[in-house]
């Protein structure tokens, strides 16, 4: 089967700074893929490149076998296949429009009557545990957790086959972050969506992704199946990351 996303030898420089160097990753359809790394590792740049928001100096990205093209028409076409969930939900929500307006725009892109979009939206909101009343609110009137769900609802409304989530739980309390992660897992299984999760939280990636890549300074440090990557890392940097992670040990071993 064709990979959902295939990045081949991506190269990118911002002036003197190496943003991506020889990055190759492939994400099989229907799986969850994790991208981990620290600030400046290139993980968000890689995400932006996958979304076609960042041109590469060299290399190729294929989405479901089709080479990624630049330009407005290509971007609109791609939006039906790949949808982002940005770290800051405000990046997807205009402060001046009600949630309803934002969702209607999705219908416009899909050339779907507003009534049909609205009907699908109600189903998605229910699934995400959001009250119908959020659609008449402005972004500042809802909580941070709700804003994240609204951003996910907007992404799902596009009927994408690939979701790319950048730090989906950053800034959320530990008691509610699990809720969002469970939700992403459920959606992915129910709709056979390919999920790419960018996170600095190694423990979370280990649990939700089948495969992951560890990045540092724009390069791939280590890539593979999570069991091997986290259970028996080969690279010193991967080991260092794992050792530095402040983790609660099992109560039994205390």
């Amino acid at each position: 089967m064709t990979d959902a996303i295939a990045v081949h030898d991506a190269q990118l420089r911002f002036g003197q700074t190496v943003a991506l160097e020889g990055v190759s990753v492939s994400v099989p359809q229907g799986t969850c893929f994790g991208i981990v790394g620290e600030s400046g590792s290139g993980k968000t740049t890689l995400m932006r490149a996958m979304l076609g928001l960042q041109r590469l100096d060299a290399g190729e990205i294929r989405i479901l076998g089709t080479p990624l093209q630049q330009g407005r028409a290509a971007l609109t076409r791609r939006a039906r296949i790949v949808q982002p969930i940005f770290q800051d939900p405000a990046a997807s929500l205009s402060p001046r429009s009600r949630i309803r307006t934002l969702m209607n725009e999705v219908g416009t892109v899909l050339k779907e009557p507003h009534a049909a979009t609205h009907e699908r939206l109600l189903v998605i909101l229910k699934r995400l545990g959001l009250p119908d009343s959020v659609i008449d609110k402005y972004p500042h009137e809802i909580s941070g957790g709700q804003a994240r769900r609204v951003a996910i609802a907007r992404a799902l409304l596009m009927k994408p086959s690939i979701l790319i989530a950048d730090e989906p739980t950053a800034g959320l309390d530990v008691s509610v972050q699990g809720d969002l992660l469970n939700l992403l897992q459920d959606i992915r299984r129910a709709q056979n969506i390919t999920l790419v999760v960018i996170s600095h939280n190694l423990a979370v990636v280990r649990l939700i992704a089948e495969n992951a890549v560890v990045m540092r300074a724009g390069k791939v440090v280590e890539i593979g199946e999570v069991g091997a990557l986290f259970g028996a890392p080969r690279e010193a940097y991967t080991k260092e990351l794992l050792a530095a992670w402040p983790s609660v040990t099992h109560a039994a071993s205390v």
Partner: protein
Amino acid sequence: MAISLRNLSVDYSLPIGTAHALRDVSLDIQKGEMLGLVGESGSGKSTVAFALMGLLANNARVTSGTATIEGRRFDLTRPNATAPLRGRGMAMIFQDPMLSLNPVFTIGTQLIEVLRRRSPASDRKTRMAQAEDALAKVKLGNPKQRMEQYPHELSGGMRQRVVIAMALLSEPALLIADEPTTALDVTVEAQIMREIIGLRDRIGCAVLLITHSLGLVTEHCDRIAVLYAGERLESGSVRDVQRQPGHPYTRMLFDCEVPIDRERHADAAQNRFTVIAGELPDPRRRPPGCIFNGRCDVSFEDCAKVVPGDYPVAGNAAHAARCLRLVTP
């Protein structure tokens, strides 16, 4: 006892009414010890730090509370109660180091200012040497060159090291670190925690670590206090609390943490994350009975009526939790 905080209550007056941010919170920290104060958003953990430092916003009011620091007692309900201790007896590390650093002065100038305030008699040359020495102690490379630099020339981790150096120079009895590593990468986080522990061991101060990360607390703290919706629900040694949480909230909080060694299950449906269902109570109206009642998974009839006290867990006087189950046969 280096630090003893008793019955701290703080209200915020808001357009929608008076929010009770803290209710009768008491904490004790021994010299050379690190206490981890954990809690989620809205628990009031940062309000504890601000009340101690006298940095509360204008709409906040301390309605009760005393702090005993190195034998001196301070009535926290009085404005600027702890002002004599700021910069000498107490130091604070914020999540954002730029809250402690002035962007228009060099690192050297700011470090020397701390020394000038602390020991006015010493001369500039001695202070320069002491400041450089402090930068070296917190493992900031090229201290001589750093003294001439401005904060914007340094990375986030380096700035946090400068703030720790400032705290080191002021030799406080109490160091308050409010989410000191939240904005940093994990490898830098580990280094910064090492420097904070190094500082504590060097000057033997008490450390109040305010964090949402149970991982940091179990790795670095001696004792833990759990705050929820403005109330301290549990306190004890990290070991005791982790082994046998006395409060259901503490147990659920630990369950929500994903251990790094938890392996992925082949059956995707098994890879679930734990969640605490429900929401925080309205800070304006405390519900009757236990504050956690609405979200508790083991509550019973009395929990909605009787306000629990602090009861010892497993007969251990140093480990207390605010749960009726501990006194119900």
